[in-house]
Structures are given as C-alpha cells and as structure tokens.
C-alpha cells in the first residue's frame, strides 16, 4: 500500500512537473522574445544605423531625378535622365572607379556635366577620371584647321565651376596644378548665376561665396533638390579659407541665401531637400539650425573683439562650446581651434 501510494505520488509529481517545466521554459522563452532588440545598457545600444563601409558607395534616392552618393569623400549629387547624367562634385580621386560604377547603376546614358561646388580635394579629386568617362554634346563640328580654338574636346564631360575654382585648380604659372588638366573646369562662370536646362529640368548654379570666394550652390528646380557643397557640413564646422576669400560673414549670408531657396513642406519638414557637402540628407530645418549656430558663434566672437579680447582669449572663452560635442574636432585638418581662429581673423579683417 505504501509502495503503491509512493508510485502514485511519483506519477502525480511527474504529471504536474512536466507541464510546469514546459510552462517555465515558455516563460523563459517569452522573456527572451520580450527583450529581443536593442536594449539600453546592453551590447548594441544605441541602435546602430547603417552607413557605407570604407571603400563603399551608398546610393540614396533623394527625390525626382536626383540621387546622393555617400562614401567617396564629399557627398556627390547625381541627376540622371534621358539626356544623360550630371554630377555635382566627384569625391576623392581614389574612389573614382567606385563612383563611376555607382553612377552606371543609376544610368547608362552619357555623363555630360560635372559641377564643382568648391575646389577641395574631396570634391574635385575624381574630376579627371569621371570627366574622362563622359562626353560633351558638340555645338559644332571640330575645325582642327582653326588651331586650338577650333578643336573641341567633346570626348569628356564638361566641368562647370566658378572662375576662381579654375584659377586655384590650375595654379599659377610655374606651379604644379592641383589636379590633372583633364579635370580642370572648362566651363566657368563669373556672374551671380549660371543656368542649364538638362533632362527636362531647370538647373540653376548660384555663386554663394562662403568657405572661399568660389562656392556654388546647385538648384534642381523640378526635382526640388539643392546641392549645397561645403556651405552646409553636417559633420563639422565649415572650413574657412581666408586667403581665398572665405569668411564667417560670407558663410552666414550664403546660408541665408540657401534658406531662401529651400521651401519646407507642411510643419517645417521635407519640401526642398538639401544634399550637404558632408553628412546626411537635409532639409530646410537643418539649414536653419546650422545658420543659427553660425550666426550665434559669429556674434559672440564679434562681441569679444569689441571688448578687446585677443585671439588666445577668444579661444579660451570657447565661443563654440555648446556645439563642440556635435560639430567640434580636436584632430584632423580642420579642428575647432582652427575654425575659431578663422572666424576671429575674418571678423578682424571686416
């Protein structure tokens, strides 16, 4: 009897333990399910956002006929259509092959135009290789008998830039050029704007001196996209080349000009989209925040100059202090200190 009871008890124990274990395992499973994903304080936090690996080009559709290429140095803007391809800036030289491959994924039509927003290496480095892969539509047959003026080089894309960009890329006589001759701008302008009509879209190139005296901003009026170059750098403070005509006042004024042509959609978002020189795709709000930051820093340094502070005292006062965690750099070619110094010197000059 005792033995039987024991057996029954054992059976009884087994009868509830199995489902209990099952339930416990379900609970454990539920706990695993409920905590899957990224959790603060655990590995993987904060959520990692995808970005191109070194050597890779990310192609982002912007809107209309316009795309943004990331990963070749400065951002590259591509407009593609039946008439061919137009690119704004060409990245660094060593990424040209990858850039061309990315462009070919978007369109196999001829590459007709390159527009340079500024002459920095990460904007013009690919000019020669990428221009060489394109071709210009001839407006007349070449006349080789007429000498150099008659021989049209239609076997490369046309490179458009403000005149001073050409001067600095070609260099003074006797000095080595900054980039190979094939990449020099051969279609310059020296008035407030140059206009094209390409792929069924008005394209307006605005002269907006900022980092130096040669900045261009490119408006794609049908796609409603602006390619801003380094006038808008969402990864850092803007470079200012005083000797080449750059200055903080010019940056603020050109940012205001950029705001003028950037129309937000409902609730101050979207609408005209902006491809910055560096960093993520932007819209009106990002430009306004950046303008506000530049204006505030300019006003502070201006006030310090009025109060007689020296450059070292201005640097010590850290006029950029609340923005440094987001935009500042302690290393590399363009540090926060160099930016503050450039702001100071540009205001002293003016």
């Amino acid at each position, binding site marked *: 009897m005792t033995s039987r009871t024991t057996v029954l008890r054992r059976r009884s124990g087994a009868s509830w333990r199995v*489902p209990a274990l*099952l339930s416990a395992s379900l609970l454990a499973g539920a706990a695993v399910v409920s905590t899957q994903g990224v959790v603060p304080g655990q590995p993987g936090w904060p959520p990692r956002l995808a970005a191109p690996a070194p050597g890779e080009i990310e192609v982002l559709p912007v809107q209309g006929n316009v795309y943004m290429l990331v990963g070749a140095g400065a951002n590259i803007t591509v407009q593609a259509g039946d008439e061919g391809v137009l690119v704004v800036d060409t990245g660094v030289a060593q990424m040209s092959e990858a850039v061309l491959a990315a462009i070919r994924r978007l369109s196999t039509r001829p590459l007709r135009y390159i527009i340079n927003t500024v002459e920095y290496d990460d904007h013009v480095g690919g000019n020669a290789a990428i221009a060489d892969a394109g071709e210009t539509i001839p407006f007349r047959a070449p006349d080789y008998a007429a000498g150099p003026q008659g021989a049209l080089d239609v076997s490369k894309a046309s490179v458009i830039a403000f005149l001073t960009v050409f001067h600095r890329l070609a260099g003074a006589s006797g000095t080595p050029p900054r980039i190979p001759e094939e990449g020099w701008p051969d279609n310059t302008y020296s008035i407030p704007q140059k206009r094209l009509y390409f792929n069924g879209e008005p394209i307006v190139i605005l002269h907006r001196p900022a980092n130096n005296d040669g900045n261009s901003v490119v408006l794609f009026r049908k796609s409603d996209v602006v390619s801003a170059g380094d006038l808008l750098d969402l990864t850092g403070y803007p470079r200012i080349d005083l000797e080449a005509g750059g200055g903080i006042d010019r940056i603020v*004024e050109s940012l205001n000009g950029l705001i003028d042509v950037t129309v937000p959609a409902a609730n101050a978002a979207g609408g005209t989209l902006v491809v910055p020189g560096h960093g993520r795709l932007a819209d009106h709000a990002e430009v306004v925040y950046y303008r506000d930051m530049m204006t505030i820093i300019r006003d502070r340094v201006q006030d310090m100059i009025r109060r007689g502070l020296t450059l070292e005292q201005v640097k010590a006062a850290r006029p950029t202090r609340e923005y440094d965690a987001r935009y500042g750099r302690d290393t590399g070619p363009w540090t926060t200190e160099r930016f503050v110094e450039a702001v100071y010197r540009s205001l002293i000059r003016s």
Partner: protein
Amino acid sequence: MSRSRGRRGILVGLLILASAPVLAQVDIAGVWRPLPRNQDGSGMTGDAAGVPLSAAGRWRADSWSPADFDVAEWVCRPHAWDYSLEGPLSQMRIWSEVDQATQKLVAYHGHINQQQQETSIWMDGRSRPSANRLHTWSGFSTGEWDGNALVVTTTHLKETYIRRSGLMRSDRAVVRTRWKRIGSFLQATVIMYDPVYLAEPYIRTTMMWVNDPALPMEPYPCEEATETAVSRGRAPHFLPGRSPLPGLDPDARDRFATPYEARLGGPETMYPEYIAKLREFRRPTRPVTAATEFGP
C-alpha cells in the same frame, strides 16, 4: 489532497504567466483624450530643474532667447512627436496597418491634433534606414512587445526642444517610449537618451489618455511667416552670461520658490535625494510676473 490542489494552482499560475506575453499584446489603436497631468517643472522661463542637462545642454540653454519663436523660418516648426506627448494636452489618434494577406500587424500610425504631428511605429521587424537618410520631427520608430508594454525605439530625429525655453535634445538622440493600455486608458513613458545635451537619460512618466472615440481632429494649416519681429537672417540669442531670463536670475522666485541652483538642472536634480540638498540653498524671494507659461 491540499498538496495536489496547491500543485495544480501553481501549474495554472505558471501556464497563465507563460501565456501572458502573447495574450497581453493589447491593441493601442483608438482615439485618445489626454488627461490632466503634472506639468514638468515650475513653468518659469529658463527653469531646468529635473532635466539632466549636460554641460553643453546648460550652455545651450544659457544663450536661448524667446525671440527664437519669432524667427520667420521657425514659425511653423512643430512640437516634435515626443514633445507633443508630454507638452500640450492634445487628442491623439492611433490606428493599425495590417497586411491583408497574412493579417499580421505591419505598423501603428499615430496623429496628434496639436500641430498635426504624425508617427509610424513599424512592427514588422524592418531594419533601420541608413544614417544618411533625412531626419524628421517624429523620427523612425520600431516597436516590440515587452509583456503588455509596447516598447518603441526612435532614431533619425531632428534636433528640437525638451522644454520650450532652450532645453534642447540633439539630432543624435534616441527616444524609447513604453506604451501601456490599461482598459480604456493609455499610458506612455518616454525615456530620452542624448549624448550631446543630456548627461543621463531623461524620463517623462506622466502622460495618460482615456479612450474617447468621439473626439474630432482639427486641421492645422501653417504658412511660413514673411514679416516677423525678427529681421531676416538674424538668430536671436543672449551672449554668455547676459541672459535676462527669470530662470537664470538667482533672485527671481518661481511659484515653488525653487532655489536658483536647482533651476540650472543637471542629473543631480532628477533624484529624490536632491530634495534634502535643496534645503541648503537660499530660497529666492523676488516675485516675477509674466515670467512663466502657467502664471507666477
């Protein structure tokens, strides 16, 4: 007999618990009326008590000017989604998107009446967009169930205000929102992580709504201003150390007589232990009129 009943009870309990995560995935869809809640802070302009500002966040607030709201470009800047949950008492509609073929939940979409902010909470396990995509006022959100709470993680946010007096969060912030439905009530807890302007996560806990299907939603057309008190191209701000905001005036008294040191904010001011420290500080005595959003 009683031991057997006890075991059965344990078994039933375990089974109920085990099934809870599935059964408790409640539906948060509906039209929701906000319930009155405690305002965050005293309401004095410039008060940051309880906000874990970093040094950068403090400096940013020090130069903020109320005229910022008069900048033509900012006239249509909306309250971001996470601010709208806590800031204005505004009705909200949440609806679900279901894949017809599988009948699985794809997303919850939300609309807040105030300034018509909208959000999407993707429930289909999709990955986050590239870091180079456009950031928005509502960001990109994914949701997953944690028991009966819907946990939403939001990235791709634009910079915006935590309080409308210069307390900012950056475009690098990540916001976690825990939604809970309790019968006809909906509750949200927002935890904000910002490596730029916050030294520690900032938690908002007081948001509560009641289901009210009859609530209407109003349109909110907004047109960019052409003429405002701030001339074109100006960015209103106060130079360092020269802000006249009452929150930064050591003698100005808010409705709670919060000491000036506490009004500067910072992580310490979030915790209950800080209440004891408050007693060590001088209480401001000079009343300030018209200095708050909610009265002196």
